[in-house]
């Protein structure tokens, strides 16, 4: 019994030795999330406008109903999103919007530092989403 005890604890103590720690010294050190990490959304720009054509598939598929789209006609007669808003307080980062998008106009970045002081600051409008890197 005591033998097993020592055997078990040896593993524990081994992990306390330097070089075995998994703790990251955040915020001094930041981890690089994986390629497939689902962080803050980003709207993909093209030459002169956003790629999004306001097809309403993302607000339709969104399980948290956090996306607001209002479509309109621009001066070229194309369909474009007059309003595109994501309320991050509602968002569950499921990535369905990215999956549903027929024109690959929305992506999710590795940005995971989304804390803020005001509720209003969690509402990302079209310009903010376009500026997301």
């Amino acid at each position, binding site marked *: 019994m005591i033998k097993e005890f020592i055997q078990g604890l040896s593993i524990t103590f081994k992990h306390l030795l330097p070089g075995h720690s998994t703790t990251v010294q955040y915020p001094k050190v930041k981890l690089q999330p994986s390629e497939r990490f689902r962080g803050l959304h980003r709207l993909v720009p093209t030459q002169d406008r956003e790629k999004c054509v306001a097809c309403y598939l993302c607000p*339709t598929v969104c399980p948290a109903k956090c996306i607001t789209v209002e479509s309109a006609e621009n001066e070229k007669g194309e369909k474009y999103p007059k309003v595109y808003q994501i309320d991050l307080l509602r968002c569950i980062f499921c990535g369905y919007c990215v999956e549903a998008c027929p024109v690959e106009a929305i992506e999710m970045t590795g940005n995971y530092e989304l804390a803020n002081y005001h509720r209003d600051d969690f509402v990302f409008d079209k310009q903010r989403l376009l500026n997301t890197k």
Partner: protein
Amino acid sequence: MVNLTIDGKQVTVPKTYTIYEAAREAGIDIPVLCYAKKLLPFGACRVCLVEVEQMKGRLIPSCTTPVTEGMVVTTTSEEIRKVRKTVLEFLLVNHVVECPVCDKGGECELQDLTYEYEVVTNRFVGEKFHYPTDENNPFIERNMNRCVLCGRCVRVCDEIVAHGSYSFVERGFETKIATAFDRGLHCEFCGQCVSLCPVGALLPRPFKFKARPWQLKEVDTVCGYCGNGCTLTLGVKDNQVQTIRFNDKNGVNDGNLCIRGRFGYSYVNSDQRLTRPLVRKGGELVETSWDEALEAVANGLKDSKGAGIITGARLTNEEFFLLKRLADAAGVTSLDHSGGECYKVLTEGVKDVLGLTASTGTFPQVETADVILSIRSDFYETHPVFGMVVNQAVKRHEAKLLVLADKKGKFTKLPNAETLLTRPGLEVDVLNAMCVALLEGGKARTEGVSGIDEFKQAMAEFAPARVAERTGVSAEAIVAAAERLAEAQKGAILLGYGLPYTPASRELGLAAANLALLAGLADQEEAGLYVCGEKANSQGAIDLGVLPKEDGLGAQAMLAAAAEGKLGSLYIIGEDPLTTYPDGDRVEKALANAGFVVVQDLFLSPTAAKADVVLPAASFAEKDGTFTNAERRIQRVRPGITSPGEARTDYAIFGALLEKLGAQAPAGPAEVFGELCAGLADYPQIGLDEIGPQGVVWGGEKLAPKTRNLVAVGGGKSAEGRFLLTTGSSLYHSGSTTTHADGPLAAVPEPYVELGREDAAELGIKDGDSVTVKAGGVDLKLKAKVGARLPKGLLFAPSHFAGTGLNRVFRGEAVVAAEVAKG
């Protein structure tokens, strides 16, 4: 009946059915693209192919193949799936797949089929269409790159609308649907093609990029414009009516609508709507609280000099019922509607002869009629969707159409149509001559008819030969038309009515009813005499008796009394007398000299601007209740949106006023509907929720005449002059409400005067010139519209627009002499 087997199911159907219809009856779904319930089979898309055991070796299109006895049909198999998938692949070769930006996405039949048959790749490669889009008109966007050549628009425009805007042009790969010379659409803009297009090739422009179909809440209600009572399905989002959805399951209109129903909804969302009650203080109308406004109205109604209530005919039955109760509570005996006293007086005329105040049949019966007499070609303008039923009767069932009118119109262009072109204002004389011709020729049905001898004596001056001299219609034509009507197995007389047609209303009602009686139409199993009021609930107002009491005044008498300062207060609901009532000068005087004027309306109309109190009311899209249409069909009106600001429904306003007067306020529409049905012998004794999607026709499909009494009628009055001016209704507008709606305004933005080509050439007037019309001592500045409709010497100006002064010209005449000059 024919017996056949579909997918192992035994089905028994009439022998006129196609396989597709039989399968639908049996609950088996066969995919279709080009089939539509109301159109003739076409067989263009090849998606509905099925296998029939008796016709082995090839697949059979189910929508064009009639059923035969003992047929064994298989609707799905591996092979059929493969063939359908191939057909879809062919369609997708040229079809521009732009679903994300196409408004049809989500309700597109091609999209649904592609999904169902899993067409994810295409084995065929070809050039996509790249036609320019037709954006020439503000209603219908034609993007032919998405067209699948199913031909539905071609067929609906030909078979039902009888306009024929579209056709297939070119052959083979180049085939496309085009308008005349491919110059874009110039039509009635009824949007039937839009409603039937299976893909996004034809789309409503006002709804462009506004929303996706699945986001819209659908509310079935009834159109608030004319007396047709078409079912409208409002597409509601964000408390706005975004569009009108296609719905051919409910109501009587089979999914057909006119420009007003389909594109004229925008006044509901208008930012010009009144949102708060207004009271005149120091000569200005200022916003106030409901309480203060209602207090003022309640006091005004109890005015010692007496009060008068004039209401429009676009209120629900329940509201009329409450209004009557309100009049009783306030002791007001002068209660009336439609101030030209047009439809009301017309029904009085019909009542004297037949004992009825409504149409004898229902609309669908007209489709199979063999002779139809339309009094005035304007019938199509006032009741376009009923007009489409006539189109189908003529085009599909080869009915003989007789049009008695002072000008040509849509009806006169139909095949098999014969127009009796009379001098304006003399339609009554021709009808009388037809009655006399039937009596003289011995073709009249006289059994059980009283008053024949007096009628014959009194009507001697209406011998066809003499009438022919006066009216310009040949005596032979009159006699022939009368005989055709008398020989008809199933005849119909159509009489559409409204404010601009006020003069000689009673005479027209009498004459039409006399003719219906003598031609035997009143005693037919179906169809007969149709009297159609102009407004959504004209019939309901008559049924409920929104009429003056014995010692009360009618609408015109009220205005006359008010003009002389003999009436204490006027309460005007949902009407704009200054714009639409005849003798506008007197109306203006009445508003100035009445002690106290209340106007209850959606907009600050010219009449409301002169009122002491203005109450903001609700449109049809915000109301709960029932309308009774021109064929006596009681249908549910349901609220789709909430009223803007503090506006209230008329129901709520009357309820609050009743409370102010110390009477019992009503519970809900359901209870009031029960009460109003209980108070009317003719109405069915049912609850509000028992009114099904098809509505309930009171009095049954056929209303038998209660009396058969011929009444002698005088003739109509015309005028003398080089030019004669008449007024009436334009197809794109209905009353003055449509002048607040973007759709109709885009089609007809401003008042105009129409002249015939001959006259225009003589005066050197071109389409769009501004002209001055001098008539009745008034100068009217109008835009000229040159058309082929009018005979030489006739001018026509529609009556919808405020501020033209047209109703200052017409003081109760049908026709006035006029002068036209350019500039």
